[in-house]
């Protein structure tokens, strides 16, 4: 290693130099770290094949510098590392000259902006997919998948429990892909009887049945080249499944009472809270239709599996209801937050929204207190409903664990979740209490995790 390599290695930014043929002649250790490419592998190779930047092909700053003789400062783009990750970078360039002043190549310095990007995200604390806000890693996967499929015409199947936001996700995919200007039409297949659903989807002609006084376009026609969202797809009858399969395969259908075949360009997004594969096994859902709609599936996690989102969502709904009801509520007291985090939210985000709307009605002050939350979620037995330990096992071991859990929770509550005080109350060592909390899956409310530790 010569002196120039030692100097280059002392620089925290990535630095490489190229000769006039675009071969890499030096590559410092920061460049090795950022790109994941060893100096020995980089030297002598074309810089574009080592650096792999979004700027290489069209807009290379080094080419511009060598052409104009002027440096380029902090031009931003991304590189793709050997793991396929896009790394945001900023690039600066300069001309390299020999002692006679002749141009012998160029030098490029680059800075990894990932940390700055990560810090920015940490400061904002969340990301959004359309109207869905989250900072849960589980939702990050949903976001990545939704973004990847948004522009695709493929049918998407959204899976998730009731109230997880399936329609919101469908709207987000529609907005990212087909754009706000095209229609988004939603149909709840479970809410309509079969005959009505058929006429809703495909439309009808005047006189098609008693009461059909004029032509009516169906939801497929209304969706045009936008998106048709079919919620509760698992509820449709076998007869309608056949008609729907034909539309998905051939993009054609006939309105009721019509002899003219219509075509549709609508993108289909279906959703269900049912296990479609199980329905197929039971013979209640056609296998061919299942394959047609299950091209890409995205599963929305229930709220109990992303509890870190509860404060974020709660604040979001407070802002929403403040706006809608012209109120000025500040938010929740710490006790209210703790109770809401402890609850398992079987009705998911929709239940949370309803609870907050109810609290707005009951609240006269500026803070939402536990008194304004429903009894079912503030009840003491709330804590016992959590975790994996059944309290109705009917056997000695289960009953013992349930009783143990209740005693520990009582002690924790009495001590204000101070683990030292709680262990004193229980007459056990603090480390035994920690072990029990973990074993019995006892969730310590947010903001009280460090007490007495």
């Amino acid at each position, binding site marked *: 290693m010569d002196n120039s390599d030692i100097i280059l290695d002392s620089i925290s930014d990535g630095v490489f130099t190229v000769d006039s043929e675009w071969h890499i002649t030096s590559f410092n250790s920061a460049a090795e770290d950022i790109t994941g490419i*060893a100096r020995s592998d980089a030297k002598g*190779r*074309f810089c574009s094949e080592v650096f*792999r930047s979004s700027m290489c*092909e069209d807009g290379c700053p080094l080419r511009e510098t060598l052409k104009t003789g002027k440096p380029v400062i902090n031009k931003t783009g991304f590189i793709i590392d*050997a*793991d*396929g990750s*896009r790394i945001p970078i900023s690039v600066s360039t300069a001309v390299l000259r020999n002692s006679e002043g002749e141009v012998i190549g160029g030098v490029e310095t680059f800075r990894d902006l990932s940390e700055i990007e990560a810090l920015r995200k940490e400061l904002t604390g969340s990301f959004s997919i359309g109207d869905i806000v989250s900072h849960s890693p589980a939702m990050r996967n949903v976001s990545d998948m939704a973004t990847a499929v948004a522009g695709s*015409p493929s049918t998407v199947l959204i899976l998730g429990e009731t109230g997880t936001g399936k329609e919101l996700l469908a709207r987000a995919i529609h907005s990212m892909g087909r754009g706000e200007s095209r229609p988004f039409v939603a149909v709840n297949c479970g809410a309509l009887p079969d005959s009505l659903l058929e006429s809703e989807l495909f439309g009808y002609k005047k006189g098609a049945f008693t009461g059909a006084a004029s032509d009516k376009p169906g939801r497929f026609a209304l969706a045009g080249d936008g998106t048709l969202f079919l919620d509760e797809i698992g509820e449709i009858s076998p007869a309608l499944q056949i008609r729907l399969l034909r539309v998905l395969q051939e993009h054609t259908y006939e309105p009721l009472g019509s002899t003219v075949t219509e075509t549709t360009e609508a993108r289909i997004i279906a959703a269900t809270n049912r296990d479609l594969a199980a329905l197929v096994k039971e013979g209640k859902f056609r296998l061919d239709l299942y394959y047609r709609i299950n091209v890409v599936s995205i599963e929305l996690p229930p709220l109990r599996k992303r509890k870190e989102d509860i404060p974020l969502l709660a604040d979001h709904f407070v802002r929403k209801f403040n706006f809608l009801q012209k109120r000025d509520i500040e938010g929740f007291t710490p006790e209210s937050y703790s109770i809401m985090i402890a609850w398992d939210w079987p009705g998911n985000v929709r239940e949370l929204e309803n609870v907050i709307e109810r609290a707005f009605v009951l609240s006269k002050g500026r803070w939402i207190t536990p008194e304004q939350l429903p009894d079912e979620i503030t009840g003491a037995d709330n804590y016992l409903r959590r975790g994996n330990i059944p309290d109705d096992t009917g056997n000695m071991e289960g009953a013992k664990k349930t009783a143990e859990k209740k005693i520990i929770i009582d002690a924790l509550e009495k001590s204000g979740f101070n683990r030292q005080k709680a262990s004193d109350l229980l007459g056990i060592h603090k480390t035994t209490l920690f072990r029990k909390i973990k074993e019995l899956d006892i969730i310590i409310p947010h903001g009280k995790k460090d007490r007495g530790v």
Partner: protein
Amino acid sequence: MKNIKTCFSVWQGRIAPVFDVSSNILIQETEEGKVKSEYSLQLPAETVFDRVSFLSENSVDVIVCGAVSRETAMLLNLFKIKCFPFISGSVEEVAAAYYEERLSESRFLMPGCGRRRMCRRRFNFHHK
């Protein structure tokens, strides 16, 4: 034997360094293992999705290209286009190596594509 359409992402006579932003492709169609026709096309400039769906619309079965982000890899998978990523070299040499199943030779791999890296794994996508 099915005719196969293979696409090479091209820039200045070599495999383009980054498929996510590349502009030009060379498509070769083989019949019974022999190249029967070839033509060049320009990829749409807008989004990665536009590029990948363009390949699908042109019935491309296989792509041989340079660096590929995971997002693009996911879309290629979605469109069932088999991908040989992180390849470098002159298009002529790479094409010959591809047909002779020699693309795993180290001289055709981009630097940094050591063992355990995504670029060493050929995306195991389905053929159409």
